[in-house]
């Protein structure tokens, strides 16, 4: 069996085809998975924006400001009860109303505490909170406020004793990701 003579044009086409193959594979991969990649990009907290104490920062259709983070009590087993107060001024109601809200306390070693339900006795001992119902972050988002509305938001946390002053609030919203905010605690 003898090899047929291959013309220089055919050899050139073969080389082009060989070089095009990785491009075609990459394109195929992109077409098949770009939705998943986009979903991954929009669900990850990749870029933290540091918010200095006393200042507001924009995220997910609102201007967010840390009002205070304080220890309000201690449970019988030594766990600290913390209360976080935030303020949000709505700029884009549609972006703001996308649930859920991730508002957590973060330690420098990366540990994160999610909000917890506090008993009324733990909250009501604060004079300025008696008789008041302050929404949580998710409740505030779900209330679908108008543009320009200023909302007060509060979340409770239960942390190991001694963590007071070592944690910072971190806020992440679906329409803000992959960016998120890390607030500096005043004082």
């Amino acid at each position, binding site marked *: 069996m003898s090899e047929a003579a291959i013309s220089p044009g055919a050899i050139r086409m073969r080389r082009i085809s060989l070089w095009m193959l990785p491009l075609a594979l990459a394109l195929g991969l992109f077409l098949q998975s770009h939705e998943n990649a986009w979903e991954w990009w929009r669900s990850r907290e990749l870029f933290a924006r540091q918010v200095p104490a006393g200042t507001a920062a924009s995220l997910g259709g609102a201007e967010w400001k840390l009002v205070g983070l304080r220890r309000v009590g201690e449970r019988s087993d030594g766990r600290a009860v913390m209360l976080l107060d935030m303020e949000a001024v709505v700029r884009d109601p549609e972006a703001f109303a996308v649930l859920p809200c991730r508002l957590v306390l973060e330690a420098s070693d990366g540990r*994160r*505490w999610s909000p917890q339900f506090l008993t009324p006795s733990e909250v009501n001992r604060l004079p300025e909170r008696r008789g008041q119902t302050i929404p949580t972050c998710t409740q505030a988002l779900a209330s679908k406020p108008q543009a320009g509305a200023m909302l007060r938001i509060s979340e409770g946390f239960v*942390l*190991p004793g001694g963590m007071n002053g070592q944690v910072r609030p971190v806020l992440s919203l679906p329409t803000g990701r992959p960016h998120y905010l890390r607030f500096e605690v005043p004082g």
Partner: protein
Amino acid sequence: MSGAFAKLGALVLAAMLLAGMQRYTPGYAEITGPIPLRGEFGETLAGRGFTVRADKVLLARKLRFKAYGREVERDTGGVFALVIARLEAQPASITIGSATWRSAQGARFVASARFQGAPRLLGADRLEPGLPQRGVFIFEVPREAVDGATLLVAASRWPRLDTQVEIALPVKPDAPALVIDLSELAYE
């Protein structure tokens, strides 16, 4: 002639390779299934979102506890298996959604739902970093499912690409306690 044999051999080899791949390629559910983390009884195992250590296994015919202000007693046609364990979230708050008793024969028993309100029931409350919980998983199993059992702990009932801790339990079905009072159990 030898060239024809070589081509035939290559064809047979390719067919065998394809048949083997078709036969042994794991399915999607298997590829994306739980990631097992096997460890010893008494050893602290660190999964993706939590740590767990199983310390003690007890068997009983009846369990007694106090829930919502009244005494409750539960009995069973099989046996109650209690695993005293320590759980901690790491690095973020997490709820342990699944504790399963897997028998040596492969039967799986999820933690019993008959003990709502019982003290120190693991899996009922969310775990927090730095705040370990010591408590008990309670299973209701036939006596023949006791010997050679394994405790499975995961964040969800059917974990996908997530940790499933697997701890072989040193327990024999002989002589379960007649009654155990959960309020008086030594958890520490």
